């Protein structure tokens, strides 16, 4: 499987009479985009705004951040199968991407109505809070979209995400026929057989148990989010968006998955420092001990069948999902596959371990820092001049945010805001450092 990735850097987005790309400048036909989105009868309203790096602007509520990508040669579409898109296997031919730009999905639609998970991310384009995330450096085309309120939660989720992907498709199409300034070839070609063989075990949350629905919206593998045995993906499939869609944290966006620095580094050093075998995608939040252990065993078996000698493991969730992640590490180690685990940590309240089940086999762990913004001591984000999206935000009134003495409060989005309760840098993007 061979994929050429052509990069078109974006240095400016402006609205104009037609959508086109020239020398880093992306011109967007606002009316055409709005009309395309409103073609779907499930969409009640859609507006388009531009957020520029360094601007005193806040975007709320942010459901997803999507890097515009388009297939130029080869089967399928980028971001396949999700929201009813083409299911053809991707990862071959040529794909063009708009780098330094993103489509931001802004909507009040929640993931599901079963509680526990809710959309909490807002993004700042400047200031200390904005700088904690990669998105403040991007030129963001924000789709503020609301669905027909009479629809069920899942239909609303699919309608607004489909709309955001339609915007992504529309702007990415502007570079389909152009010659990219940068090209990079991605291929898992034959390498020196003495190099160590490494697999990436990428654990992603399933909303099935919490929502009670096997088709609830979340980060999807070819559109599927249900609890299912591990998938084997070629890394090219991920570069074409086969693993895509958001989860609840700011680091679990489509953009972040497609630009995962760990995946790219594993790939770019294939044949130099190791032999990269591929990606095992493991769904998490199984709800019995037996299921968790079974998935761990099967993940390790799959890695072993691939001939892996090493595995790099990440996850994007919290709580009981740690068990199948940790047990997968244990199962790999017991089959002789060395593991490295990339994770955030809980705070050590009352002397509890900062990880839920610290098994002895997990003896090589890279911490990306505490996952709670309160533990990190992140100050309130300052007031901003401009808000894209909803003018009000509900903030949880508790110790996590220091607001309202236990009562949830509705606050003005443009005013000073506490950071969302989770930071949780799943893939090692973080620019935070510490002072001792």
């Amino acid at each position: 499987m061979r994929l050429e990735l052509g990069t078109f850097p974006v240095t400016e987005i402006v609205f104009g009479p037609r959508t086109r790309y020239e020398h880093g400048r992306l011109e967007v036909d606002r009316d055409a985009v709005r009309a395309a989105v409103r073609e779907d009868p499930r969409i009640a309203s859609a507006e388009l705004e531009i957020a520029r790096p360094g601007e005193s602007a806040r975007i709320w509520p942010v459901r997803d951040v999507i890097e515009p990508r388009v297939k130029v040669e080869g089967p399928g579409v980028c971001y396949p199968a999700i929201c009813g898109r083409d299911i053809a296997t991707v990862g071959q031919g040529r794909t063009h991407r708009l780098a330094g730009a993103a489509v931001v999905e802004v909507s009040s639609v929640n993931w599901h109505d079963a509680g526990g998970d809710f959309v909490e991310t807002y993004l700042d384009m400047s200031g200390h809070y904005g700088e904690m995330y990669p998105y403040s450096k991007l030129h963001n085309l924000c789709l503020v979209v609301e669905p027909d309120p009479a629809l069920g939660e899942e239909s609303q989720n699919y309608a607004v995400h489909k709309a955001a992907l339609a915007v992504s498709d529309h702007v990415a199409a502007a570079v389909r026929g152009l010659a990219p300034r940068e090209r990079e070839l991605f291929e898992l070609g034959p390498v020196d057989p003495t190099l160590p063989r490494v697999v990436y075990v990428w654990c992603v949350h399933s909303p099935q148990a919490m929502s009670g629905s096997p088709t609830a919206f979340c980060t999807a593998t070819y559109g599927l989010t249900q609890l299912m045995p591990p998938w084997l993906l070629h890394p090219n499939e991920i570069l074409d968006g086969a693993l895509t869609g958001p989860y609840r944290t700011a680091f679990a966006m489509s953009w972040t998955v497609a630009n995962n620095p760990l995946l790219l580094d594993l790939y770019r050093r294939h044949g130099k420092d190791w032999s990269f075998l591929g990606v095992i995608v493991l769904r998490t939040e199984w709800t019995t001990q037996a299921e968790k252990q079974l998935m761990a065993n099967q993940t390790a078996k799959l890695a072993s069948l691939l001939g892996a000698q090493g595995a790099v493991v990440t996850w994007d969730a919290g709580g009981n999902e740690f068990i199948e992640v940790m047990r997968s590490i244990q199962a790999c180690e017991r089959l002789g596959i060395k593991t490295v685990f990339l994770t955030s940590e809980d705070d050590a309240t009352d002397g509890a371990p900062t990880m839920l089940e610290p098994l002895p086999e997990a003896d090589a762990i890279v911490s990306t820092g505490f996952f709670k913004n309160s533990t990190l001591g992140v100050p309130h984000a300052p007031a901003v001049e401009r808000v894209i999206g909803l003018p009000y935000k509900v903030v949880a009134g508790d110790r996590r945010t220091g607001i309202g003495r236990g009562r949830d409060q509705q606050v003005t989005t443009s005013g000073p805001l506490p950071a969302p309760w989770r930071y949780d840098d799943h893939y090692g993007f973080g620019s935070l450092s510490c002072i001792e």
Partner: protein
Amino acid sequence: MISAIYNFALTTGANRVVRGARIEHVCGDPSLGPEKDYAYGMRIVTTALEALATPVMRPTLFDPLAPGPTLEAVHAS
């Protein structure tokens, strides 16, 4: 402690651990229908009461689904 993730409860040092159904319904299983769900729930709770009356020397699993008329304590390794 009644827990669907019973191994975790044992390794973290709970003395008496009863195997629950699932994280989302620890003390029963609605998919069985009302009568069987109730019977299963009763069995879990009865096992928990018996566990309370059983002396243990270390973290011990009590399994409501284990066969046999008496419930046997299974010691964690």
